[in-house]
């Protein structure tokens, strides 16, 4: 990387929920620090009544926290967040604004880019600065190709980064200075959040999980998904699925990993009874390690599995869960 002196200022939009900063924020702060070199890393925290974040955000690499604490930001809204960021950028835009690829981040970034006339790139899995340009790589064409996108100099850049591709940086003793900023008196927020209904899940969110246990048609029915839940609980993993269980109504749509569902890149992806259709591979082939359990030795998933187990998942999964529990009890 030819970052050299680094970017003068990089902003990271803090993703938070229920008072807790989401993991993607730490990942982005690490990347921001790398791109800024000796330049400034600023965490932008929008919300209402959010707890003092200076310590957490500083430890992960922020020099400064810009805090906009306003009742109108109690819920994420496209227009509220866009107005806040556009207002802050009008006082002095950063070279680069990093936003995590969450439902809200994907909703916000293009709108903000259009408002600011900034260049935007989404789904980034690498980010570098070369010859004054921001160079990002991103999966395209159902992950059958990697695109290199160049955002030229002389404009603000907004990059939306995939979760779990940049490492969480080691903590430092840094404490960020907090600067409070106000929202303009007149901002227009036309949408109204009626409610946010949590989907009851025992496990971590899919896009943030280190380990994912995922089931396909080979599970045969919804009654067998508890086999995955049990293994996931033992491993501290999240549970996902390929498309057929969703289409068959065994699990809700938010389980789905693949072209028409979520893109994940965990440390380990355990595919159970998943054949490996291209549309599924599009969502998970960026996993660091893939373990596949399938009865069919010719299942395409075995062509990319680091460990392929040809066998009956109904015999293997309960034993695997017990073995993981034993191992955890010892270690």
């Amino acid at each position, binding site marked *: 990387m030819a970052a050299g002196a680094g970017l003068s200022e990089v902003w990271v939009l803090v993703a938070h929920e229920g008072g807790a900063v989401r993991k993607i924020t730490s990942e982005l702060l690490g990347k921001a620090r790398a791109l800024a070199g000796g330049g400034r890393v600023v965490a932008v925290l929008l919300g209402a009544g959010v707890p003092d974040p200076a310590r957490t955000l500083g430890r992960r690499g922020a020099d400064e926290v810009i805090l906009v604490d306003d009742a109108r930001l109690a819920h994420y809204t*496209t227009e509220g967040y866009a107005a806040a960021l556009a207002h802050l950028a009008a006082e002095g835009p950063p070279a680069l604004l990093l936003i995590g690829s969450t439902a809200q981040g994907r909703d916000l970034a293009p709108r903000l880019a259009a408002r600011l006339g900034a260049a935007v790139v989404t789904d980034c899995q690498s980010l570098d600065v070369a010859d004054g340009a921001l160079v990002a790589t991103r*999966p395209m064409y159902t992950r059958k190709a990697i695109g290199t996108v160049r955002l030229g100099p002389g404009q603000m850049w907004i990059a939306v980064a995939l979760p779990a591709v940049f490492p969480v940086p080691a903590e430092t003793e840094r404490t960020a200075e907090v600067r409070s900023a106000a929202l303009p008196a007149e901002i227009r927020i036309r949408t109204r959040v009626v409610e946010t209904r949590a989907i009851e899940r025992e496990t971590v969110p899919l896009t943030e999980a280190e380990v994912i246990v995922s089931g396909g048609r080979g599970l045969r029915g919804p009654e067998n998904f508890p086999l995955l839940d049990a293994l996931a609980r033992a491993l501290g993993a999240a549970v996902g699925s390929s498309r057929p269980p969703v289409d068959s109504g065994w699990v809700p749509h938010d389980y789905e990993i693949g072209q028409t569902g979520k893109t994940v890149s965990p440390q380990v992806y355990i595919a159970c009874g998943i054949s490996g259709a291209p549309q599924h591979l599009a969502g998970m082939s960026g996993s660091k390690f893939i373990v596949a359990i399938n009865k069919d030795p010719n299942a395409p998933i075995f062509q990319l599995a680091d*460990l392929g187990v040809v066998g009956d998942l109904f015999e293997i999964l309960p034993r695997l869960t017990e073995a993981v529990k034993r191992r955890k009890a010892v270690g």
Partner: protein
Amino acid sequence: MNIIVCLKQVPDTEAPIRIRPDGTGIDETGLNLVMNYYDEHATEAALRLREQFGGTVTAVAVGPERAREALRQALAMGADEAALLRDPQLDGADHLQVARALAAFITPRTPDVVICGKLSTDDNAAVVGPALAEVLDLPQATAIARLEVDPNRARATVHRELEGAVEVLEVPLPALFTVERSLNEPRYPSLPGIMKAKRKEIAVMDLAALGLSPEEVGSPGAVLERLTSPPGRTAGVQVNGAEPEAAVEAIITFLSERAKVL
């Protein structure tokens, strides 16, 4: 109700992709091109609103000549009108430029609702929809899984799938929505629909016809420089014909020694 649906024609996601040797794009020779999957859901949503409230559905696409096919499919599904926005300056346009061209088409038509797919499966960017909402100065809701418009057409209630939650939003109309696949089940074009679509004219408009100057469209801020093949994954170890206990042992060893999660 005046409904606009924005479309894109893309390679079939099941088709293999051949990257041109110089990396500048993909080789489209013999490639099966289809209406972007999510845009089928967008078209379906538009048609259902028309069925509920009356009005017209206009399909619009930015793209080369071949993109007519996607528009033809929208007409066959039941759209009333279709327009292709085609201009040399739009070749290699970035998403914000595409949004500006679409906005120039849409603004004079004063829609009640603009609907897009949540992303297109070729570049996967999910940028045009929200950028278009901004240029049109409309409120937006992205990746919606449910859409209900109240009887007096003043507002819509939508559901968005977040990470681990569903957000219920109230959005005043006119508005722009991008749609998730769980929103609906797209209809197949009927035979009479296909016949009728063949006779319909697809308007073709360049930037001048849209009343856009080259300066207004601008130059791309983000440029796709090259495509490369993803790093190949190769099959690792395969355990075949083992007893379940041995298979479990192999997985445990892998998780702890290779993947280091145990």
